[in-house]
């Protein structure tokens, strides 16, 4: 009976349809496409009726009209809805235009997606069309300045250098304040996957940006989760915000190819006005030095020696295929970016495959997203920790301009000849990384779907730093011997994740429930080797000798070991018959002297290893409930367990909630208000970054080993690395806030306004142990201390012109953040200032009642009659009421199109902070000139005595305010004939870092040198790698 009834119902429309046709009603056919091809799944509806259909796989549709003067409405998520009057036509082909208004955009949130309209939290998504252009090495640069409250700062102008990202202020007193990065659903491991670079004799530099393995060209969108309601789904890793990177997937439609190529040219945007050789000598004579003795007879512009005009090339090729039950996109990228300092280079080769397959009548969806990359980079001999001699850049500022730029010139009085340093050092890192995720999504019932995901991220990094025996005037026993470091790191991050989704819609409400479990393991394994005494000066060969010596000796050792070494002589320990000692952590023979074959081309080798892992286990849930499409509720909860903490405190619990009210849906809101939504949210998120492995358990290892200046190795003892600390637990950030989204006239004018208040508690702080203690510092939670960040964010966009041939729009964002440390006992000096006469000097202090990164220096009041500096309060350092944290950050981007042309400009700015010009402190003082170093012309007219000390003071503290024209670009879409091979060809010319408006006297205020390894530092400019000015010509072709 039932079946019969059903059949009747089915027959009815068929009958009507047939009748309709019989009566000559119109059938309209056509193809719907977008700029890149046909679009399946586009909804085609006869306006004012329920009569509608969808485009098929080939973008074709066919609809039988009910009314002869109908209008068809074509709509598709992410595209502007288009209406076309039929007017008797039988074929209507439509090209949909992507909707540029951000509010309709899909936003990827944790474990799912939503639209901006339905988002309850402060979530911003930036899609590929809005990405920054030009030379982009890593994904964060794509979105720099695009989002209010997200401060993205390049720490130096070196290709692939680290990037500081601060979302809604700085929460942590540990090294890492960067957000969690999630790539295609895989949360990445904290920190870096490579060893920091080390130039023996000069110093160490932090690792490169770990995200450089991703090809920016493969990225579809980047979502930034800012408030706790959005990030709490990532629980313990959400406190600094979350950045979700989604790569491009295959699109339905025809097979297509895309080729992108860029050629760039960079030069230093600014250099210092140092004394020329002639000026150096005349100033020497004027100031009473023996100019003849200071004249080495050459004319050298040292900045010319180390800086260069550089070129970069990028090639990308992508293939897209869509077919009935799936799609795939495969791409390949090749780039070679040179830095403007000699010997700085980043080469990347990457392959990506994203593939989706639907099975079982689309109930089962399999997804594979994977990339393989090979990044080879080279770093010049730079170090933020460089002492009185400076590093390559510092020594180039200081070098006597009458020295010869011949690398063998060594009459330097203990200072570095930059040409010698450049020619005889080399630092390379070769990183291979594989990241993929494999997912299966099964629609179990109409309402329930389940998803299983396996993610795997493995990287192998081989870092080599060598200084050969031709080095002059550098300590460490390198001269005449050569010295090198070799680090082989292997990091693996594996993820297993299961989620279940329940979705139910009734007439007035929708309910969406997510339940999930995730397990993640971070394996870290590595070898740190040092070598001394090479019989070659070839820098490549030195690296090879060191790595093959390490591997050859290691392969001869039987059993587990932590370290091994051989040397010209050992200190301590009884050397047996053998010539290699091996330390072993198991019982029996903790130190073993074994007789192994040691390579003859390396006189001393010391190798230490590590191999450990951490685990994170999580249970999470989210409920989204929407009533009348007006009231939106989100609640999330996550429990995270981590091996980083004491047995009693391994689990942290992170709840959050948010409520949004879509006022636009209310009758009392006028029609010209296209968007109006109020949002409130509160939640708790956690942070454990920087705590490191095994800091809550009592753990013993052999102490570090090294090779001394004479090629000797001290046989190490064992030491307890960490105390047991059962109480160690999660640091947590409680955040609440409210926001409003608004738009008028179809969002022609649009904006958002947000307020937030964050308070970070149970600070995980590396505090002074109560002595006597096993380690001078230990991690502890400070229960009463807090770090407060509160602020407002405002974004506004307006489409000035919306014509057919000419459009012009602009988007502006600005954010204000207040930062303060509360209830902290003690004071913690930080912000090391390095350079001659600056050992142990510092310029920052962490204390309650002050923002983070507060400057703590002498208050400089000028020079006295003798040219000695005069300080307030007799010269004791004090808080000067200034911090390195900007209070205001902002961005302005504007774009215009005219026919086939489009233009973009993007300005970024930061205000309210102070930068410490450590470059000037270390190099540009009268005393520096007195010791034979070169200085700026202005240095010698300041009234400073040649014998004056240059202690850190407000003399070197400068306002860091700046506005930068970061990008200016023009693109031209080459008109294509129907018959053309190409679908589209676009030519682009981009300039980066074209204008910088700042009062800062150094090269660039937007740098941050890593000058020590303790508390994080910010805002210190110490011979930083300058930001280049870059011009890029690009071509993009689709066919």
């Amino acid at each position, binding site marked *: 009976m039932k079946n019969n009834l059903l059949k009747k119902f089915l027959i009815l429309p068929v009958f009507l349809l047939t009748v309709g046709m019989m009566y000559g009603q119109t059938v309209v056919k056509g193809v719907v496409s977008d700029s890149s091809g046909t679009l399946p799944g586009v909804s085609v509806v006869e306006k004012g009726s329920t009569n509608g259909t969808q485009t098929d796989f080939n973008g074709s549709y066919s609809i039988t009209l009910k009314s002869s003067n109908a209008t068809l409405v074509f709509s598709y998520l992410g595209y502007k809805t288009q209406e076309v009057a039929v007017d008797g036509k039988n074929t209507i082909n439509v090209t949909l235009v992507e909707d540029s208004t951000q509010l309709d955009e899909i936003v990827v949130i944790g474990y799912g997606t939503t639209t901006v309209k339905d988002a309850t939290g402060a979530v911003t998504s930036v899609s590929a069309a809005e990405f920054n252009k030009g030379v982009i090495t890593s994904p964060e640069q794509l979105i720099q300045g695009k989002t209010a409250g997200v401060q993205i700062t390049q720490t130096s102008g070196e290709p692939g250098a680290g990037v500081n990202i601060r979302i809604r202020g700085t929460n942590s007193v540990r090294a890492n304040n960067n957000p969690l990065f999630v790539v295609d659903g895989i949360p990445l491991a904290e920190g870096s996957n490579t060893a920091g670079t080390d130039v023996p004799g000069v110093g160490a530099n932090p690792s490169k940006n770990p995200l450089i393995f991703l090809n920016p060209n493969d990225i579809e969108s980047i979502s930034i989760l800012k408030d706790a309601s959005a990030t709490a789904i990532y629980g313990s890793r959400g406190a600094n915000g979350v950045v979700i990177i989604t790569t491009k997937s295959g699109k339905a439609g025809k097979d297509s190819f895309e080729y992108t190529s860029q050629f760039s040219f960079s030069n230093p945007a600014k250099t210092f006005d140092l004394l020329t050789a002639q000026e150096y000598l005349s100033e020497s004579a004027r100031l009473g030095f*023996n100019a003849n003795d200071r004249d080495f007879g050459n004319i050298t512009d040292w900045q010319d020696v180390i800086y260069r005009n550089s070129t970069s090339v990028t090639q990308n090729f992508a293939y897209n295929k869509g077919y009935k039950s799936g799609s795939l996109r495969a791409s390949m990228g090749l780039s070679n970016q040179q830095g403007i300092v000699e010997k700085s280079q980043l080469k990347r080769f990457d392959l990506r495959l994203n593939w989706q397959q639907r099975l079982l009548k689309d109930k089962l969806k399999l997804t594979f997203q994977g990339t393989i990359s090979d990044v080879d980079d080279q770093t010049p001999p730079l170090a933020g920790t460089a002492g009185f001699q400076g590093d390559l850049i510092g020594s180039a500022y200081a070098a006597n301009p009458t020295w010869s730029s011949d690398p063998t010139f060594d009459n330097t009085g203990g200072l570095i000849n930059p040409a010698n340093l450049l020619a005889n050092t080399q630092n390379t890192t070769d990183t291979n990384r594989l990241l993929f995720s494999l997912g299966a999504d099964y629609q179990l019932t109409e309402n329930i779907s389940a998803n299983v995901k396996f993610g795997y991220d493995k990287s192998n990094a081989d870092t080599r730093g060598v200084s050969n025996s031709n080095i002059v005037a550098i300590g460490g026993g390198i001269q005449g011997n050569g010295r090198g470091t070799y680090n082989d790191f292997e990091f693996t991050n594996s993820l297993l994740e299961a989620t279940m989704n329940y979705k139910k819609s009734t007439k007035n409400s929708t309910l969406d429930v997510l339940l999930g479990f995730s397990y993640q393991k971070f394996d870290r394994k590595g070898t740190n080797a040092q070598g001394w005494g090479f019989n070659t000066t070839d820098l490549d060969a030195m690296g090879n000798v060191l790595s093959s010596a390490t591997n050859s000796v290691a392969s001869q050792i039987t059993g587990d070991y932590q370290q091994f070494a051989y040397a010209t002589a050992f200190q301590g320990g009884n050397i047996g018959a053998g010539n290699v000692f091996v330390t072993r952590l198991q019982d029996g023979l903790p130190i073993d002297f074994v007789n192994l074959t040691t390579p003859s081309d390396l006189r001393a080798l010391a190798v230490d290893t590590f191999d450990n892992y951490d685990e994170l286990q999580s249970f999470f849930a989210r409920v989204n409930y929407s009533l009348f499409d007006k009231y939106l509720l989100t609640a999330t909860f996550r429990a995270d367990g981590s091996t980083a903490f004491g047995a009693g405190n391994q689990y942290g619990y992170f709840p959050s909630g948010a409520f949004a009210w879509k006022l636009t849906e209310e009758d009392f809101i006028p029609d010209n208000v296209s968007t109006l939504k109020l949002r409130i949210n509160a939640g708790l998120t956690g942070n454990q970054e920087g705590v490191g492995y095994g800091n809550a358990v009592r753990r013993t290892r052999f102490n570090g080993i090294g090779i001394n*200046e004479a090629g000797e190795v001290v046989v190490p*003892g064992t030491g307890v690395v960490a105390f047991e600390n059962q109480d160690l637990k999660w640091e947590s950030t409680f955040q609440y806030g409210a926001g409003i989204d608004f738009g008028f006239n179809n969002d022609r004018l649009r904006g958002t306004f947000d307020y937030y208040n964050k308070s970070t508690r149970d600070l995980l702080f590396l505090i002074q142990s109560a002595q006597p203690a096993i380690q001078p510092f230990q991690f502890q939670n400070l229960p009463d201390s807090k770090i407060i960040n509160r602020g407002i964010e405002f974004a506004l966009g307006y489409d000035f012109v919306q014509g057919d041939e000419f459009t012009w729009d602009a988007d502006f964002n600005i954010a204000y953040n207040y930062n303060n440390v509360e209830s902290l006992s003690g004071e913690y000096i930080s912000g090391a200032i390095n350079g001659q006469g600056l050992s142990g000097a510092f310029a920052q202090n962490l204390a309650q009642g002050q923002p983070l990164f507060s400057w703590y220096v002498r208050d400089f009041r000028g020079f006295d009659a003798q040219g000695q500096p005069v300080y307030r309060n007799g010269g004791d350092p004090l808080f000067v009421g200034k911090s390195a944290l900007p209070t205001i950050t902002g961005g302005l981007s504007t774009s215009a199109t005219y026919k086939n042309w489009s233009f973009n400009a993007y300005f970024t700015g930061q205000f309210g902070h102070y930068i410490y010009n450590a470059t000037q402190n270390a190099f540009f003082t009268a005393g520096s000139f007195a010791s034979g170093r070169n200085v700026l012309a202005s240095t010698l007219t300041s009234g400073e005595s040649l014998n004056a000390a240059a202690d850190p003071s407000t003399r070197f503290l400068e306002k860091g305010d700046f506005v930068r024209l970061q990008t200016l670009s023009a693109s031209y879409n080459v008109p294509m004939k129907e018959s053309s091979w190409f679908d589209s060809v676009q030519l682009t010319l981009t300039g980066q870092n074209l204008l910088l408006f700042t009062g800062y006297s150094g090269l660039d205020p937007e740098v941050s040198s890593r000058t020590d390894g303790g508390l994080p530092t910010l805002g210190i400019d110490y011979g930083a790698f300058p930001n280049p000015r870059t011009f890029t010509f690009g071509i993009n072709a689709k066919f």
Partner: protein
Amino acid sequence: MKNLFTRMRKLFLAMFAMVTVLSCTDLTIEGTDSLLQETPEFTGVEDVAGSLTSVYQATYGMLGDQANFFALNEVTTDETLVPTRGTDWSDNGIWRQLHNHTWKQDHGFILTTWNQLNGNAYRATEIIDPLSQASAQQAAEAKFLRAFNMYFVLDFWGVAPFRNATDPGSSIPTVLSSQEAYDFIVQDLNEAISDLPAVGPSAATSRASKSAARYLLAKVMLNSERYTGAAPNYGQIISLIDGITGEGYALAADYFNIFNPAVDTETIWYANESLGIGNRIWNGLHYNMTTPDNGGGGWNGFSTLAEFYDLFEGDANQNYMGSNQEERRGWVPDATTADNTSNWGIGYGFLQGQQYSGSGAALTDRSGNPLSFTKDLSLTNSNETNGIRIIKYHPNPMPPGVAGGSQSFRAHEIIFRYADAFLMKAEATLRNGGDATAMVNQLRALRGASALANVSLQDMIDERGRELYYEFWRRNDLLRFGQFTKDWEYKDPSAIGDANRRLFPIPLAALVSNPNLEQNPGY
């Protein structure tokens, strides 16, 4: 088809369940690259021998540094200073504050030294704890090392915090008063003396021996009045030193040769697992003074005061060979005595006047002026050549059989020397009402100095200065002789006579970490 669906669904659900159940973990880490202790309580040191080596190495590392421990003991005195030379060696005022006695509770060296000494003492405590099951000799070595480190805590700060190995990491250490700490150290040393091996002059004196412990106990007792208020037991001090003599230690001739690595009769305890000699050699030498293994040259920092230099016999204005100087003032190679095989132009002792390269060429400073070290200097405002430099350890030629070159960064720094024990005995004799003249003159004769008529306490401290400069004891000596608060050329007027300066302030960070600590008066 339906079957397939059902099967697939079952398979998927099974997979889903597997992921959730099988990957569940109890979140315990395994000791893949470290020895992990299973229980939270202290169960003893995992590797006693390795741990003991660590305490030696940490102690030696501390001694080798030019900053921190060395600086607190020497730069705070009239013997050496680190003048600010224009933009060199200003170092945020850290050296000036030590020498002119204006240090505060945030002084970096004071904090670091607090951490080093107490950290070393704690590691020793762990070894001594019965749970570690150390052998009697290992425990005795640890007691000796704990006494050494704890003694300097007492000497610098007047109190000593203490933590048992079995106390939880989160516990707050108790604070031993001056008297308690003194008694604790004396007990450790007495126990150490009985269980340590008797070791005569040999290469083996880099580890603790009966004589090293006797020496330290004599030193602690000689200074006891500052900690206990009671006069020392001079007889016991003398018998301790006689015990050292009885094991074969004796004064040795050829003063600067004592500081070479070869075995001599004076070295009671030396650091072999530290490379501190480099700091002792280079901290005062100019950048243009180099050796084959150190092309970067010296660091041009440390100098001595004219008034200290003038304690030595010899021509006050030059120190070349034949300046009528006593042996301990050393000599400076000139154009004829400089060579590139044994001295590289670098002198011994006190470097004054024009300096020469190994090939005998007169050196210049970085401004092109003659590199001639002068007596005159200024704490705040010196140039590159101001100040007489001290160099006690010399960059030796490589040992026989090793290819040519220098040993600028070798180990073998002397910590306890017999000449000090000898002078302690003389001092104890003098303070006990006896006459030390013969003993002091015995030493002076060996060093090529003229005999003194009658040795007073002032002669005694001056003699100790001449014999033991740069060997860590000047602050300790000045305090014992009541001269630490006296005036010297660059001392801040406010600090002259300030008795509070005899102790360092407890570092601010330590006060925060331990409420049982009280700041010393005056800070």
